[in-house]
């Protein structure tokens, strides 16, 4: 399929530049919504930066494992045309019909032929290069085990004997004569997600990076930790291979303008990055290792990130030291690193010795990307990132060219995923869906009838890097598998979900004529479908596989007791094996898809998501509980960049109200809900008459927003001089005289956030404070403004405004969580007392106005009701809980549900808009389908056993069973939700729930309790 453009009409093609996680997400969203995509990456395989990460917070999963299924999906998607080692030369034309010229440097490998056997590398290691730092023994040019495409690449210049190299390859896949070629395509839109480089600290002599091998960047440290890294996941000190006992992280290297050549912005992701690395390190070595993070402000502003920081400090005892070390000096004697720093309590500098230092280097736009942008005529901002508008976060200055991920601005994975989906949504608008191609017929072998065969079980054990292999001896486990009855094959397959392993399993199934498969790996929740698809491709019914969760539910939780873990792994394998014997082929049912969308909430997110979908011809119902649109954003006057919010909101509201594709339902309360993705039924009651209305829709998007927090502290609500930042925002527009009259204004941050009542960081308060401070100074330049904060979290480019505020004389004073400022009413004002950390003594100031940064809290009441009615999970703070914190940030765990805006977590308007467009993009991936595939896990009645007793009819939570004309219970598989309650209650045992049949469950028990000595 590679490089074959024939199948694709150009008008509906979209070019995605950059095969990082953002590019993959965008490409997959587009492909799933029926668009044809050309995904290009300049490196030899896709994956981008994330493939160098060991694990990601907050679950500390191995990222390769969470990502790789996505990647091979990416590879599998028939709509995606993948070009590696390819860059954009030229773009002309405009939205709807661009002409792009690509240039592809030679790989010297025939992708169709290369089997990735690795022979070429074994003989000629020198011609393969591997380079995200720290690489002593270039293992292979496949940058990580799950690389796509699954093929090598040759660096011909490094090759001495081309002939010999050619001969090495039995597949004859090496093409020395290959030359770089130019490809020209017609595309409707372009999405840029080229990612970013990380700051190179070698220029900073005071950190000895490059001189001293024990000073590494955070990315290099990831590689050291990574199972697929140069040290196979062994944590050793590069200098002498000893296990380090003290590691220091130094934050803001190349960010916040701290060092020469450093960017002035905040790189946003490094704090969590460092915390995660420290926690993972602690996890590995508990108390035998000491981890210290030197930071200025701990910027854990994302959803539940604050709690993650709490855990780092309290559970894992990571030392957080607020200070900027001024030097790292290697100590020849000890071989250690002397780090000198000044504690922020003003006490004199200290020097402490560490074994390793990790520099948390920030992001920067690479030269090549800057050039590319130039050729496209894309406007860049002061920091060379693509310029975007606060009200249109992923659109570049060139219509039809969209941007997502790091190139738009420093950010972490979830935000990148959001922007990717948003960009996909907008790009899709510029193009037409392609003719839908049924994938199965394309890739699957015809299904083999195994009904007459004796079970031939194949057991495949993943080591999942160290996740499983590090705790139990997988080889030994596979041997054990061989001893089980009816097992034909039992083997270890490395990363089972990796492309190569999947191919091995595929081949084994076919060659060994297997008719049942057991995978010993991670949770079926995340990987079952992947392996089911694999079976299908291998010509087996997808329900003939059983997954033994030996990772999440064994090695991850019993790492402390390898023997127990080993025994349990055996149990789980035995259970799965004896149960899979009884599995039999099942057929799935499908239903027509409702293409309508229900959007709940008419704020900026709700309206934007509704419009994004309606613009593409979908019918949208927008249910708003208030009698007008606008939500919280409707009360905001100005953005930090000074944009006029009311004007924007008014336009948005009018567009929404006038759009023929959108029906706005005011005063609407959701009262009931049934159905499944593609055919939901939701009941509304509409005030004031409270009449009832039911809406049929295919997907649901929750944009129910959040509430401005108004805790009754610091005299808020009691004293007219005390107000919230939101009040101040209004005041700034409506009562200039009062502002002019103010001489001193105090602001207190983290009011009602990062506290026991609400552990969350509200994310937006720091920037609002800075925003209002600057506006106050605009009106009244000699006003004295004090901002009392715990950590200034002006992430990304908002750091510039923080800087500006300081330059313009705003005084920022930090306070400790346990020593908050005290306030006392004064005549016409407020006295604020606080402890100055430098002087170490408390100061009092009289303010004309006290401005509280109260942030946002979940609308607990509303979200609780909705969670109840829609059966959704929520976080402790009452925000909706996404399906996967990193990779599916807007998908809720109930299929067909998406969340956008502050209902997900506190966000500013720009982020809400990105969310809204992204949610629309995600929704399209479902709506593109014309039928709903129902699982086969449905209840089936054996009419011979049925006593027509009505128990199932009465027990079914959804009233599906009925006694049919023939006098026995009938259950419509299309309607059955597959809970199995009827099966459990049937007194005649006449009902079985497919995939969970009694004999399968009992067989599991047999497998577990079989009294055999292992």
């Amino acid at each position, binding site marked *: 399929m590679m490089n074959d453009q024939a199948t694709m009409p150009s008008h509906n093609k979209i070019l995605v530049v950059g095969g990082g996680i953002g590019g993959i997400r965008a490409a997959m969203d587009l492909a799933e919504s029926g668009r044809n995509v050309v995904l290009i990456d300049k490196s030899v395989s896709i994956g981008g930066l994330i493939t160098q990460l060991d694990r990601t917070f907050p679950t500390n999963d191995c990222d390769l494992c969470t990502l790789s299924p996505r990647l091979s999906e990416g590879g599998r998607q028939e709509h995606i045309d993948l070009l590696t080692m390819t860059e954009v030369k030229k773009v002309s034309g405009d939205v709807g019909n661009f002409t792009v010229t690509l240039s592809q440097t030679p790989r010297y490998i025939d992708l169709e032929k290369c089997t990735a056997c690795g022979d070429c590398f074994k003989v000629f290691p020198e011609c393969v290069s591997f380079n995200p730092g720290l690489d002593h023994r270039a293992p292979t040019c496949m940058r990580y085990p799950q690389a796509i495409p699954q093929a090598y690449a040759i660096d011909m210049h490094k090759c001495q004997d081309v002939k010999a190299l050619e001969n090495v390859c039995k597949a004859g896949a090496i093409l020395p004569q290959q030359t770089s070629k130019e490809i020209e395509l017609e595309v409707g839109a372009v999405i840029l997600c080229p990612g970013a480089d990380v700051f190179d600290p070698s220029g900073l002599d005071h950190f000895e990076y490059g001189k001293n091998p024990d000073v590494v960047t955070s990315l290099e440290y990831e590689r050291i930790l990574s199972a697929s890294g140069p040290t196979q996941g062994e944590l050793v000190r590069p200098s002498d291979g000893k296990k380090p006992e003290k590691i220091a992280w130094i934050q803001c290297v190349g960010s916040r303008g701290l060092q020469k050549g450093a960017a002035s912005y905040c790189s946003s992701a490094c704090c969590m990055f460092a915390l995660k690395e420290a926690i993972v390190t602690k996890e590995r070595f508990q108390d035998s290792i000491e981890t210290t993070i030197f930071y200025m402000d701990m910027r854990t502003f994302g959803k539940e990130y604050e709690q993650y920081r709490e855990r780092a400090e309290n559970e894992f005892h990571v030392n957080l030291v607020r200070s900027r070390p001024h030097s790292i000096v290697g100590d020849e004697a000890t071989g250690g690193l002397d780090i000198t720093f000044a504690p922020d309590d003003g006490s004199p500098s200290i020097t402490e010795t560490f074994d390793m230092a990790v520099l948390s280097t920030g992001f920067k736009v690479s030269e090549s990307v800057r050039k590319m942008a130039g050729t496209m005529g894309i406007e860049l901002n002061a920091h060379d990132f693509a310029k975007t508008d606060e009200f249109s976060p992923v659109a570049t200055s060139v219509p039809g060219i969209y941007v997502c991920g790091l190139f738009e601005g420093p950010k972490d994975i979830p935000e990148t995923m959001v922007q990717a989906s948003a960009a996909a949504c907008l790009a899709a608008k510029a193009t037409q869906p392609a003719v839908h191609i049924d994938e199965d017929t394309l890739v699957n072998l015809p299904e083999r009838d195994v009904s007459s065969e004796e079970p031939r079980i194949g057991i495949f054990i993943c080591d999942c890097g160290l996740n499983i292999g590090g705790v139990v001896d997988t080889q030994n486990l596979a041997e054990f598998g061989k001893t089980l009855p009816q097992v034909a094959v039992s083997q270890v397959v490395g990363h089972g979900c990796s492309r190569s392993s999947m191919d091995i399993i595929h081949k084994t199934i076919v060659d060994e004529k297997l008719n049942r498969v057991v995978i010993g790996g991670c949770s079926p929740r995340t990987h079952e479908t992947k392996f089911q698809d694999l079976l299908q491709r291998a010509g087996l019914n997808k329900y003939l596989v059983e997954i033994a969760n030996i990772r999440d539910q064994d090695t991850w*939780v019993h790492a*402390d007791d390898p023997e127990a873990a080993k025994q349990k792994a055996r149990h789980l394998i035995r259970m799965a094996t004896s149960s899979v014997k009884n599995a039999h082929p099942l057929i799935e049912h499908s239903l027509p898809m409702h293409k309508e969308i229900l959007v709940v909430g008419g704020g900026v997110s709700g309206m934007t998501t509704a419009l994004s979908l309606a613009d593409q011809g979908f019918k949208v119902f927008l249910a708003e509980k208030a009698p007008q649109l606008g939500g919280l954003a409707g009360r905001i006057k100005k953005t930090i960049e000074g944009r006029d919010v009311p004007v924007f909101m008014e336009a948005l509201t009018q567009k929404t109200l006038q759009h023929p594709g959108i029906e706005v339902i005011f005063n609407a309360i959701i009262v009931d809900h049934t159905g499944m993705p593609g055919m939901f039924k939701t009941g509304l009651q509409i005030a004031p008459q409270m009449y009832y209305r039911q809406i049929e829709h295919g997907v649901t998007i929750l944009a129910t927003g959040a509430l401005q927090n108004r805790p009754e502290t610091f005299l808020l609500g009691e004293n007219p001089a005390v107000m919230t930042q939101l009040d101040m925002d209004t005041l700034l527009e409506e009562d200039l005289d009062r502002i002019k009259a103010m001489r001193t204004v105090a602001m207190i941050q983290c009011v009602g956030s990062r506290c026991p009542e609400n552990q969350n960081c509200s994310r937006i308060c720091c920037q609002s404070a800075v925003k209002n401070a600057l506006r106050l100074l605009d009106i009244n330049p000699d006003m004295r403004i004090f901002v009392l904060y715990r950590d200034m979290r002006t992430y990304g480019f908002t750091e510039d405004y923080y800087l500006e505020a300081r330059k313009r004389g705003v005084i920022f004073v930090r306070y400790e969580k346990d020593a908050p400022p005290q306030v006392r009413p004064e005549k016409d004002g407020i006295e604020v007392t606080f402890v100055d950390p430098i002087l170490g003594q408390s100061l009092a100031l009289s303010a004309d106005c006290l401005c509280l940064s109260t942030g946002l809290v979940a609308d607990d009441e509303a979200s609780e009701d909705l969670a109840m009615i829609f059966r959704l999970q929520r976080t402790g703070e009452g925000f909706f*809980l996404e399906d996967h914190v990193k990779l599916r940030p807007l998908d809720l765990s109930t299929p067909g549900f998406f969340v956008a805006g502050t209902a997900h977590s506190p966000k500013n308007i720009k982020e809400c808009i990105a969310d809204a467009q992204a949610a629309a993009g995600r929704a399209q991936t479902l709506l593109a389908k014309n039928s709903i595939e129902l699982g086969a896990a449905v209840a089936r009645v054996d009419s011979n056993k049925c006593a027509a007793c009505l128990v199932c009819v009465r027990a079914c939570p959804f009233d599906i069973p009925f006694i049919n004309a023939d006098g026995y219970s009938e259950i419509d598989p299309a309607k059955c939700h*597959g809970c199995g*309650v009827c099966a*459990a209650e049937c007194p005649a045992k006449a009902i079985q729930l497919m995939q969970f049949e009694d004999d399968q469950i009992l067989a*599991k028990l047999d497998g577990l309790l079989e*009294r055999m000595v292992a």
Partner: protein
Amino acid sequence: MKQFEPVIVAFCCHYCAYTAADMAGSKRLSYPANVNIVRVPCSGKVDAIHLMKAFEKGADGVYVAGCLEGDCHFKNGNTKVARRVAYVKKLLDEIGIGGERLEMFYMSAGMGERFARVATEMTKKIRKLGPNPTKAMSTGNQGEAVA
């Protein structure tokens, strides 16, 4: 003589308890390896027979873990099974196996900690109760099912 290691079967609903178990995994919260999970789409799928057979086959303890009350993905499967569990507890008392070897728990998908705590408590409790009486007589079966 090494301490008795019970075999415990936990029937976990896919949407909450099983997810909570995975959550415990990703948070690396360790709990006794004695607990073996059987995944069911809804706790309401767990049949009285499954519970009985688990003990008959030699489990020392069994528990069903479903969604929090009111949160069942299928409306009320969890409360339905809770009634069954209570019924089977009586049966077990009648035949001298001991109803206290069977329990019902509720937890949400996010409650990895609770899953680990429940697993630990249940294991402690069953350790105290000793092996399933059906194994008591047939010699040397004690640790074996675990071995």
